[in-house]
């Protein structure tokens, strides 16, 4: 747990005149599961989206595996990188979205093998074999030929997790992965995430599932108004919350 995988330094992000991220810095170590919590508008989703450059940042820097994300050094300044380079950097960063975002024109299997084949140039047999193994791992082996719209929300989200894992990322980002699900489907998605955490995947998770945060996270980062106000292991945050925001957010789960 000593190697830093994701590092953010002084990240500032604005939408117009509104400052969403106000100088955010953190380290994520290899194998860690880190949960980001905060009330809505605190900047946690935006922060996650900056890690794979789905959002531009004004100042600061984010590195994954030592590579600067989205920008390159140019005469002492940071300028936005070329699309092809940004695409290359994103291969290592898997992302799971609140609304699953499966490709609606493809079967479950094709959703999973598309990027390995078209981005990494894998042949169909190898990509399919891995896709089938991943589907088995998320409990959907029999759904390979199904269409996304014939699946429940929980099943779609598990396919989305398999699709992200098929690129063999070094870190996985989860943006409120259970917020769009019916309550009875939340458990199956969290179970898959818990397995991933136990297998040593590095994960950053934005969620409102406080029990999951408490039981699975190695660390919880608490955000408020674009800043990190507290960062520590769940036990410490639950037992000795230092910040009023932490107390307010964790109170219902205690």
């Amino acid at each position: 747990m000593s190697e830093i995988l994701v590092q953010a330094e002084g990240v500032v992000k604005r939408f117009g005149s509104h400052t969403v991220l106000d100088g955010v810095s953190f380290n994520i170590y290899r194998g860690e599961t880190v949960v980001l919590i905060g009330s809505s508008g605190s900047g946690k989703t935006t922060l996650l989206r900056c890690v794979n450059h789905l959002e531009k940042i004004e100042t600061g820097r984010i590195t994954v595996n030592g590579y600067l994300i989205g920008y390159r050094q140019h005469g002492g300044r940071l300028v936005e990188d070329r699309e092809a380079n940004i695409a290359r950097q994103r291969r290592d960063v898997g992302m799971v979205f609140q609304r699953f975002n499966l490709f609606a024109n493809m079967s479950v299997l094709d959703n999973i093998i598309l990027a390995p084949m078209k981005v990494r140039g894998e042949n169909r047999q190898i990509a399919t074999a891995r896709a089938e193994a991943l589907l088995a791992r998320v409990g959907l082996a029999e759904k390979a030929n199904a269409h996304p719209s014939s699946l429940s929300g929980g099943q779609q989200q598990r396919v989305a997790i398999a699709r992200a894992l098929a690129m063999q990322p070094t870190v996985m980002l989860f943006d409120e992965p259970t917020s769009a699900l019916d309550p009875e489907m939340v458990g199956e998605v969290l179970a898959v995430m818990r397995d991933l955490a136990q297998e040593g995947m590095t994960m950053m998770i934005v969620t409102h599932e406080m029990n999951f945060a408490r039981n699975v996270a190695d660390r919880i980062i608490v955000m408020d108004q674009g800043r990190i106000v507290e960062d520590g292991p769940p036990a410490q945050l639950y037992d000795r919350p230092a910040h009023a925001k932490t107390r307010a957010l964790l109170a219902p789960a205690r």
Partner: protein
Amino acid sequence: MHFDWPYFWHQLLQPNSAFLQGLWLTLFISIGGQVIGLVIGLPAALARRSTNKLLTWPARAYILLMRGTPLLVQIVFIYTGLAAAGILRFHDIHWGGMVLAGNVQAGILALGLNEGAYMAEIFRAGIDAVDPGQTEAAKSLGMTPSKILRYVVLPQAFRIILLPIGNQFNIMLKNSTLVSVIGVSEMLLVTETINSATFRTFELYSVLAIYFLILTSIWGLIMRLVEQRMDRSRLRSPAASLGTTLAETV
């Protein structure tokens, strides 16, 4: 009113060879114009959606010009105007025994350029209608913009725009009559020519209208079959257009 029924039936059921050649020319010009429109439409739509001003502005200017001026004026401008200014003169092209007349080339080009502007807007609407969440997911998997377009966005956009494209071709069939103004012997000009010799205006234009009605009806039938096929494939694999909406209601 006198309506010469025997003449009408004769023209309708046994049209002379000049009229049949006009019919083929109408089809040839319409299809040619539509193909050019399709070929121009996609790049114009992509340029229009680009964030690069060097691409956006020419695309905007093209669409504004083509949609903002009459097609008839464009046809005359391209064939007669450009030649008069010494910029471009359309010469007949010969291959083997076939001749592609200069005015036919100009007519197809004008129809195609005009169509391209409408196609650009249809393509743009189709691309914008694809759920942007899927584009983000594809980005997060390391796909480049061109691959996202090719594998994720365009296949879904094509389904959305198939019917609007069919509608455009219906319009194209009828607009092709406008190239008669530069002397292309398509169905309208042939009809005018026969009329000037026979003066059976009402009968002849009735026949012309019926021929267009038949062409557009056949095309309508083809589009309905395509639509049914799309519906069937949607039932078999209910993803395509329902997918995202269902997913979002979950």
